């Protein structure tokens, strides 16, 4: 089941050091890369079907194609390393064990979109990983893989690592750019038509760490080699994570289309303590929760999870055993969302707090029959009335807990 495309070098000793990384194939894509035109690189990535791995799953090539040609301002590539979605801890593995893969991916991708400066926006808490990536960047500059002539070719590229300050919302790409521009991390209004992102007025692509780390393989091996893994609509592989009530928590690289049940049982080693499975959050806390009886035919790809009323998200699965009391789990997540709402839009700032408060009241044994409806109506207010998708996704997940585990909420709503 497990494959090694991105995680190929993870187990090698000192794989983060340039010398070892180069010995194991890092920067080997550059020769082929610079023999291609930027458009050819974009085309290759488009054909590979690579999709964004930060949660949205948007086709990477299409994103790159939105970049205007000959824009008067410089273009930028921004790497989203603000991994803060509960249950998600995959990008840090790449930064810890193969930072040069990330740098190689940045070179590939920047060349494709004609950017000469890339920024890595890393969450503030990842101090160790920020140091690790910075050391790798320094090594790469010294060895000539970054700077005036990347790898000896006629292409200039700088990379700057930028540390966040502890704000979940900065994982939203427009909030990330606001933060990178030195402001509060408030998401921007979405344009009506498709266009790139903007950093100080320069056209910008924002991609997740893992997405960018997938590019060197596609360029050096060709799009067909990437498509040999995964499914027709979700080609390639992804770093899937497991945490919570599971025997072998961790990050595993799997081709898309792997059976979820098999993943939990065979690789995850089943539920901790031999207990029964109750629920799974498939890809970070902002996905619809799934009951154990729903997962039998789910495969780990965007389409299958969508069909089952959830989403693949970041691939960070949270496993819950039979003893988990779902209103408590939901309360825990609402404390998170209440705390992390950026505060820009009133429905989100207030609404997340209201739901959190009502859940607290229920768990204290002070629930009334009206409360269930009140939560539902608060969630309706959260949906579709805010600048970014934070509030709608909160409403969406609340709905999944309330309907799928209604009897548990009902037991609290009776006085």
């Amino acid at each position, binding site marked *: 089941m497990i494959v090694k495309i991105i995680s190929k070098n993870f187990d090698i000793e000192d794989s983060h050091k340039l010398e070892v990384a180069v010995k194991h194939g890092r920067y080997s894509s550059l020769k082929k890369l610079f023999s291609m035109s930027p458009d050819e690189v974009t085309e290759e990535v488009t054909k590979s079907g690579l999709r964004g791995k930060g949660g949205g799953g948007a086709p990477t090539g299409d994103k790159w194609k939105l970049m205007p040609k000959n824009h008067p301002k*410089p273009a930028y590539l921004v790497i989203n390393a603000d*991994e*803060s*979605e*509960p*249950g*998600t*801890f995959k990008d*840090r593995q790449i930064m810890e064990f193969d930072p040069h893969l990330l740098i190689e991916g940045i070179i590939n991708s920047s060349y494709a979109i004609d950017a000469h*400066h890339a920024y890595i926006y890393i*969450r*503030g*808490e*990842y*101090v*160790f990983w920020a140091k690790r990536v910075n050391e790798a960047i320094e090594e790469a500059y010294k060895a000539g893989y970054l700077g005036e002539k990347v790898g000896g070719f006629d292409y200039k590229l*700088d990379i*700057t690592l*930028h*540390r*966040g*300050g*502890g*704000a*979940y919302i900065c994982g939203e790409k427009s909030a990330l750019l606001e*933060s*990178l*521009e*030195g*402001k*509060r*991390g408030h998401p921007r209004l979405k344009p009506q038509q498709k266009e790139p992102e903007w*950093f*100080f007025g*320069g056209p910008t692509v924002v991609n997740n760490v893992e997405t960018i780390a997938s590019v060197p393989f596609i360029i050096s091996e060709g799009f067909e080699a990437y498509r040999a893994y995964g499914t027709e609509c979700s080609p390639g592989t992804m770093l899937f*994570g*497991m*945490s*919570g*009530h599971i025997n072998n*928590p*961790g*990050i595993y690289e799997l081709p898309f289309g792997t059976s979820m049940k098999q993943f939990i049982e065979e690789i995850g080693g089943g539920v901790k303590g031999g207990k029964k499975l109750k629920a799974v*959050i498939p890809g970070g*806390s902002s996905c619809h929760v799934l009951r154990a009886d729903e997962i039998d035919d789910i495969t780990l790809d965007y389409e299958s999870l969508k069909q089952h009323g959830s989403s693949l998200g970041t691939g*960070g699965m*949270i496993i*819950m055993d039979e003893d*988990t009391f779902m209103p408590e*789990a939901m309360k*825990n*997540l609402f*404390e*998170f969302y209440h*705390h*992390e709402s*950026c505060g820009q839009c009133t429905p989100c700032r207030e609404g997340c707090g209201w739901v959190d408060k009502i859940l607290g009241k229920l768990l204290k044994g002070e629930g009334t029959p009206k409360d269930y409806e009140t939560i539902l109506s608060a969630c309706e207010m959260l949906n579709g009335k805010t600048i970014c998708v934070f509030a709608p996704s909160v409403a969406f997940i609340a709905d999944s807990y309330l309907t799928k585990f209604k009897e548990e909420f009902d037991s609290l709503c009776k006085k």
Partner: protein
Amino acid sequence: MSEFKFNEQNEKKFAELLTRYPDRASLSLPSLWMVQYQEGWISEEAMVYLAEKLNTTPMDIQSIASFYTMFNLKPIGKYNIQVCKTLSCKLCGSEEIRSHLQKRLGIKFGETTKDMKFTLTEVECLGACGEAPAMSFNDDYVGDLTIKKIDKMLDELK
């Protein structure tokens, strides 16, 4: 004029960073980090100083510093313990860990011990779900926490 000043190393770093962004406004977060590493926290004097450096107002700097949870707007203890309270850690027993830490240090979340040795905070997901329950201890992560492991760690500090 404020009394706070970057030390030589940070002054140099600031000048270098100026060359790496299209606009100096971007330097607000890196500068706040430099202040925090230099002083341990971000004082009003430091904000006035940064406002001058970044061609903006002290209020602007304060609004940024107060938005991001990692910036300390008052002095904190020598050891900064931040325990994760989000779902994966909760499922793996963080509640027990959290109440033990409060008991052992004799303070509640959000407080600092009188001798300014420990500051204890609850934080949202650290991205350490695979090693839950987890906390950050100053700049490092400590995972797979047990009461025994915490006690051993704290004993060794004394």
